[in-house]
């Protein structure tokens, strides 16, 4: 007798299988694609100034902006990529030229730029970073500091070809 009994145990087992199948279907293609590209954050490009110069340090420093730049797919580090950084700091407002600067990633795809202390503006202590050099699709980030007293902030780029 092939009688399918619809009791709680069978239902749970069946739904468990369905869930497992559904989840793996969602996960597997993502794994095949590898490292997903970073999407621009809303408000990330606000007060952006194109072509800020590469600098040793923005202003007098005291605060560190760090991060990495990698390639979408295989996640390989991208060396020599220009990252622009700006924020409202103790030395100037977000839109002012002295609040902007750029730096390049090293051979490990790591960047690190000293800048003045970021302070809350528009209700949140946050920084802005941009990759906007053309070789890859532009990405604008707007990370928020956990505390306004933090002395550093990090942001990571995964770029896809333009």
């Amino acid at each position, binding site marked *: 007798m092939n009688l399918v009994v619809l009791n709680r145990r069978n239902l749970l087992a069946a739904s468990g299988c369905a869930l497992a199948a559904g989840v793996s279907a969602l996960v597997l293609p993502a794994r095949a694609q590898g490292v997903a590209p970073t999407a621009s954050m809303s408000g990330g490009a*606000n007060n952006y100034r194109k072509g800020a110069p590469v600098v040793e340090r923005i202003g007098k420093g005291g605060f560190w902006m760090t991060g990495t730049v990698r390639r979408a797919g295989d996640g390989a580090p991208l060396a020599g990529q220009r990252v622009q950084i700006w924020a409202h700091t103790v030395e100037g*407002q977000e*839109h002012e030229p002295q609040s902007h600067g750029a730096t390049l990633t090293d051979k490990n795809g790591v960047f690190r730029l000293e800048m003045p202390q970021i302070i809350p503006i528009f209700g949140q202590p946050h920084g802005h970073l941009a990759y906007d050099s053309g070789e890859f699709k532009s990405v604008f980030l707007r990370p928020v500091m956990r505390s306004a007293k933090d002395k550093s902030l990090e942001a990571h780029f995964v770029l896809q070809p333009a």
Partner: protein
Amino acid sequence: MRLARVVSIWALLAAALGVPIALSFTSELLEWRGPVYIIAGLAGMIALGLALVQPLLIAGYLPALAGYRGRRVHHWVGGALVVAVLIHVGGLWITSPPDMIDALTYTSPTPFSPWGVTAMWAIFAVAFLALFRRRLGLRTWRIVHMALAVVIVSGSVVHAMLVEGTMETISKAALCALVVVAAIKVIVDLMQRKTRPMRSSSDGP
């Protein structure tokens, strides 16, 4: 009303509004802000303070401003609230246009922006509808105004609490709590009053 009671009510109200505003002037953030940004922030605080005054006025809780006089002042304070919000938004627009555009279009990354913008539209709606309140009819007007008042109070309070700005945290929370309590108290009172016949004695000319 006893003089001591009158004095204490006004003193409490002055403190509820004055202390948070005074403490905001001690914020170190002011050092790095321009005058327009500072005025914009101040206008926001004043608007929050007026949101406390409004229910107290309309319910007649403020000595010497009960009944008809309280309602007249409520209208004027409502107008002042609109002006304060306009200065707040205008000043922030001048300070950073792209951030303000994001907020007004509900695309801002900051979680407090939609609350503030929604409260702003509710304030404008009340002010606009107030001009036609006779045509709307007292009953409809009251229901609409009360519903919008709930939006204004909850929107403003959540907006203020989530913003990391010049206001000192405890005095800001205290003012916000008073705004919420005053609104709830007045709404409950008005709803109870509606079930009874129209008041007369406390409402004299």
